[in-house]
């Protein structure tokens, strides 16, 4: 998977992996908008880094619902310098969502599903950008929708 450095329009290879306990202190509210430590017990937390670099550019908390063949994105945040008009890299959230789609298919095959509970104001942005399906309170991706996101961000 790759993100794009906006200033140079160059692609940078990224890796997404589990956040180690000691790294939770690095995920500060100041830079990553939330206190990630509080999610440690209830969710699996992942980080996005440029391949070969230590800096964390984004993080995501996932909750697995095996009985429903579904993974829920509880929280996702790009680092502060990657939000808004002056952001450094494009595609951080997309790559994290694509990773979640991949994990879901890896676990559940054709039954796989990724969901999130959006803020009402943001709902149509997720629908437009990621092709998510509106299920009332929740948005979700399954079948071809998952595949499309994986293809868009992984190939």
């Amino acid at each position, binding site marked *: 998977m790759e993100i794009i450095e906006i200033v140079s329009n160059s692609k940078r290879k990224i890796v997404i992996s589990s956040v180690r306990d000691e790294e939770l202190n690095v995920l500060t509210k100041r830079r990553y908008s939330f206190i990630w430590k509080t999610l440690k017990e209830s969710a699996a937390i992942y980080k996005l880094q440029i391949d070969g670099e230590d800096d964390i550019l984004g993080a995501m908390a996932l909750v697995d619902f095996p009985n429903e063949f579904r993974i829920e994105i509880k929280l*996702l945040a790009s680092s502060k310098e990657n939000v808004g*008009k002056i952001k450094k890299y494009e595609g951080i959230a997309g790559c994290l969502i694509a990773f979640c789609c991949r994990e879901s298919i*890896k676990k559940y095959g054709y039954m796989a599903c990724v969901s999130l*509970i959006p803020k009402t104001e943001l709902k149509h*942005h997720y629908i437009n950008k990621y092709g998510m399906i509106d*299920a*009332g*309170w929740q948005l*979700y991706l399954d079948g071809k929708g998952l595949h499309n996101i994986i293809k868009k961000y992984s190939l």
Partner: protein
Amino acid sequence: MINKQFAGYSDEEIADAFVLPQKLTKRQQASAALELVKARKKSLGGMSEIDKLTANLLQLKFQLEDYIKSEDFNEEKSFGYFLKEYLHLINKKRNEFAAEIGIHETLLSQLINNHREPANSIIIRLELHSNNAIPAAYWYRVVEKEKEYFIQTNKQLRKNQKKFVKNRLAVSL
């Protein structure tokens, strides 16, 4: 309502960088769960057999990718294990699949039960059968991983071969 810490960003910019936590009441949670089940039932009902096969092949591909990349060796995850999974995903009987890749059913069983190592030709045929969905290199690397573990850990083989080696180097790295 979006927290004031995000003031100054447009909704699009926020959605582009975040999935914010949303708290629902118990009642809303129950309603959300029910709505999702209904919507997914409809989606699954409309899924074609090709879509299901694609998703299942991706599942095997991702499992293979992660296993190959991982530094750990898992005795269970042999070539035979993944081949059996492939047959299961494409819903083929052994005799049917053996005929499709031009081998005898006995050989297929030996491969699945890890009684025989696959020849390169078999690995290529698997790639062709999956229409390149599972590259030959993936199957090859699973075999390599097994070989590497065998070579690294086989004490008996070392014991047996010792007698053939003379004048060993007097260095230690």
